[in-house]
């Protein structure tokens, strides 16, 4: 039998929840397998499944007759299921171990373990979902955090498709105007002036730009935001790093210049995945190895999404502090005044001019005071970084981002051409290119829609 027709099974936890797990079976053997493994609650008699009816019962090992778990079973006959095949879902409330046992039982009875995303692939092949929805499912599977998962779900519900659809509509209206004026040249059908066309094209560019930006940051969301700890030696960067990561990862000593290389680690702060980077203290040094470390630190500070500029609150501010603050002036992040368990030598007022837009927080890596506030501030900043200024974040994967970028470039070129009084029918070539890329996301064809637009907008014809 071809691989595509085999009956497959997998654990599929309902999205967003964790208490109940589902084992899903799809394929022509699904019902036969259910008949073998699903019994009444006592485990004695076979339990008949009705299409779409939810049945309570127990799952038994078809070879040993052993009771595996209690479960709810639902049968979804083809072609009305997600995959358009016969599907049975067993909802069990056990943990991973029990779910795995249920899965094993099902596989013993003739199913094959599904490959990652295989259910989705079948649904896509069956025409059940469009490309961007299929990809969203894959994203859900891969998403590292709840927030990322929420975004992926929004996409699954069609957020990306909807927004791309809106832009696509706008481009279609433009093309309808251009095409109508070409095909019906001596009819006064009232098409847009070139100036208005240019404006509309530019609108699409900014909408695409926004989508690309939010899409980009959604990538940040999935892959995490990078946060660098910067500051002169011995201010407590490594101590803060350890406090945030929650383990002793970086070496802490009272010798300035302890950290000589970049250290990074993944952590989740308030549900947001963050790549935390500890660096060598920033100062002028003659030690070659430390010098390399300092250079690397500068580079990290440059590339990171966010910065924590660490100051030793028990010492007066010095030039090295000011240099460091100046260097990260334009970055968003916080100024962390550390060692607040000791007597303060730093006045907040004197820091403000050097802090840029960064909030100034007092804390102690030693006692843990203020660390929660630091975490909250970082999480907020990370989310802001991710969602940018826009209210509706969308999840876009690499392929979709590329398509969006291409569409944006083409619309830019068309707007540019129009504003340089290039004939609209030539600018249209770029618009069609943009449409091509937008359709790569939604998987539709433009031509029929365009005809529809032309005729609904204009009174045409002799």
């Amino acid at each position, binding site marked *: 039998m*071809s691989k*595509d*027709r085999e009956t497959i099974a997998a654990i599929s936890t309902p999205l967003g929840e964790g208490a109940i797990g589902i084992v899903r079976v799809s394929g022509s053997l699904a019902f036969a397998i259910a008949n073998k493994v699903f019994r009444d609650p006592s485990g004695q008699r076979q339990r008949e499944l009705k299409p779409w009816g939810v049945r309570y019962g127990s799952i038994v090992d078809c070879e040993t007759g052993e009771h595996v778990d209690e479960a709810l079973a639902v049968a979804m006959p083809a072609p009305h299921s997600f995959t358009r095949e016969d599907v049975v879902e067993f909802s069990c409330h056990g943990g991973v171990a029990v779910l795995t046992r249920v899965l094993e039982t099902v596989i013993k009875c003739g199913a094959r373990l599904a490959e990652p995303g295989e259910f989705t692939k*079948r649904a*896509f*092949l*069956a*025409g059940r979902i*469009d*490309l961007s929805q299929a990809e969203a499912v894959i994203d859900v599977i891969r998403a590292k955090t709840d927030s990322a998962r929420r975004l992926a779900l929004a996409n699954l519900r069609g957020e990306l498709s909807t927004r791309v659809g809106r832009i696509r509509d706008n481009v279609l209206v433009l*093309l309808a105007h251009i*095409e109508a*004026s*070409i*095909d*019906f*040249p*001596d*009819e*006064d059908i009232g098409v847009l002036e070139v100036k208005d066309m240019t404006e509309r094209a530019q609108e699409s560019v900014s909408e695409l730009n926004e989508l690309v930006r939010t899409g980009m940051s959604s990538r940040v969301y999935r892959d995490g935001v990078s946060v660098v700890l910067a500051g002169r030696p011995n201010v407590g960067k490594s101590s803060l790093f350890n406090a945030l990561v929650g383990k002793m990862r970086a070496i802490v000593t009272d010798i300035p210049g302890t950290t000589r290389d970049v250290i990074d680690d993944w952590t989740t702060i308030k549900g947001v995945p963050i790549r935390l980077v500890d660096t060598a203290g920033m100062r002028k040094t003659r030690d070659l190895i430390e010098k390399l470390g300092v250079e690397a630190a500068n580079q990290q500070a440059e590339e990171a999404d966010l910065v924590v500029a660490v100051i030793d609150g028990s010492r007066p501010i010095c030039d090295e502090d000011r240099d460091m603050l100046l260097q990260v002036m334009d970055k968003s992040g916080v100024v962390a005044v550390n060692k607040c368990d000791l007597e303060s030598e730093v006045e907040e007022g004197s820091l403000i001019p050097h802090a840029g837009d960064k909030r100034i927080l007092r804390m102690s890596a030693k006692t843990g005071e203020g660390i929660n506030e630091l975490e909250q501030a970082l999480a907020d900043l990370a989310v802001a970084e991710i969602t940018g200024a826009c209210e509706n974040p969308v999840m876009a994967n690499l392929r979709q981002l590329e398509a969006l970028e291409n569409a944006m470039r083409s619309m830019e070129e068309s707007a540019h051409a129009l504003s*340089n*009084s*290039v*004939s*609209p*029918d*030539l600018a249209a*070539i*770029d618009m*069609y*290119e943009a449409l*091509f890329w937008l359709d790569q996301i939604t*998987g539709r*064809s433009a*031509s*029929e829609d*365009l*005809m529809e637009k*032309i*005729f609904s907008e204009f*009174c*045409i*014809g*002799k």
Partner: protein
Amino acid sequence: MLDYDIIVVGGGHAGCEAALAAARMGATVLLLTLGWESIADMPCNPSLGGPGKAQIIREIDALGGEMARNIDDAYLQIRLLNTGKGPAVHSLRAQADKDAYQARMREILDAEENLAVEVSHVEEILVSREGQVRGVETREGKVYLAPTVILATGTYLGGRVFIGDVSYSSGPHGQPASTGLTKILRNLRLELARFKTGTSPRIARASINFRNTKQQPGHILPFGFSFETHGTRGDQVLCYLTYTTRKTHDIIKANLSKAPLYTGAITGRGPRYCPSIETKVMEFPDRERHQVFLEPETRAGEIVYLGGLSTSLPLDTQREIVHSVPGLEDAEIVRPGYAIEYDCLVPTEISPWLEVKKVPGLFTAGQINGTSGYEEAASQGLMAGINAVLKLRGREPFVLGRSEAYIGVLIDDLVTKGTKEPYRMMTSRVEYRLTLRQDNADLRLTDKGFALGLVPEERYEMFSKRRRQIQDELARLKTTIVPGDAATTRHLEEIGTMPVQSQTSLGDLLSRPEVSYQSLAAIDKDRVKLPEDVTLVVEIELKYAGYIRKQMSQIERTQRLETRRIPRSIEYSLIHGLSREAREKLTAVDPRSLGQAARISGVTPADIVALVAYLETGSHRRKQDSGDADGI
């Protein structure tokens, strides 16, 4: 023994081109027409060309068809439209002297050696027990035998004319309708659709108050429709423009209950681009006026067609409407407008080479395939004629791609997507119009026409010379470096463009929007005088090189799907992962390539993925190896 190689039924624009092409390729052809007066008739607007259609006429000419030469010989007025826009959409349009047009076409048919024309009413298509076409039988019971038959019956098939509450069985222009053929097509299990189209009233020229209208003169141009024509006629006549008024619209609204379109008497689908005045007034209530074009039908000009005023309202209402239009206050209607309903094939019944899939040897062309327009019809006639001959000779069909010709787009649209309304060509249907221009139709197609035996030696030589001139001039301009001396710089400033950096070629200069071929004459010392139709192509190719390159890469992108053939033996019912709709549509259309499959409406990208997966797995190949020719 068979009487003829090919029988063409119908003498309209499709029938004429079909018969001529087949005869010129050496087949013996019989053309059966309802009457000499319906040869190449223009029952609707007496005009040819316009956006999309001009390109088709040029393509017909490039392939060796007749329409372009015929209109060049018989126009009253010619204009170049869209000159304010890019070169891809520049389009010729001509007002025809319809009598002269028909007369010349009759002469051409008459003079063609392998072609016989007979007036006869075909009532029966003869089909062998194996389902192969054998010939036709006329109403009088006369039988003509031929292995191929081309049906080009226009709107005569089951035609029904509507004027107000009067309706009667008829073809256009009071010709008899052909009812028997409809039945026959049904008997052949072919799916039919019912379409409608409309015409405007015609009025007496002497009754027009021209003072109240606007003149529309023709243009003087260095070319005509045919690549053999090198200038326009001096004796062009004027057309006129006027507008409907609020009063016109009130009359229409008050009489809507008498409009067969609105009473439900007409059920056929009409074209959206050619709405009746009733429809325009009702669907665009904000518009204060609509254009009315006064188009003389002949040089003598007694009869004037009212373009834009298509209607099927009763005659007395038509009179009121006409009289409410400035300039037509006293106009006398010579022939009222009418709507005509007719039967046509659902075009997915036919193959990309215009052969009816279920009836080998039977070809169809023109309105019977669901199109509207003389040019659309003629081009299909030409293609059907060519393919009928190729079939007789056992050769591969001649099919043009979407990236090769408007004709390719037209036929691909029809046979792939079908059509829900009479199909009219528009430039917006053509993805690659910057490379499919009217000025380069010969460069695209004349080689093919010559290979088919349709383009005579002499004409081919003329073409080859033109092509050589274009290529040489392009090469010369690309390699000639602009000198950096003071005189040159001054000239460039004079024509309003920046001075050049070193190593700039004349070709580079031409790509600047403000620079024209003409404006460079003074600094282009080696230039020799070339025909304008040559320099036009050269200038376009250089000026729009950037956009042309973009378009070429778009074409390349689609080629992978287009060239990926689908084996003829494919069984869509066996392919896992196809939706039911896709399965049905794919089976019905029987696409030749993945590209064509992807264009079928109802076939989703997911279906294509499944199809590719199937073709890749090789499960079909075993079957294919056992002698299935993927050919064609």
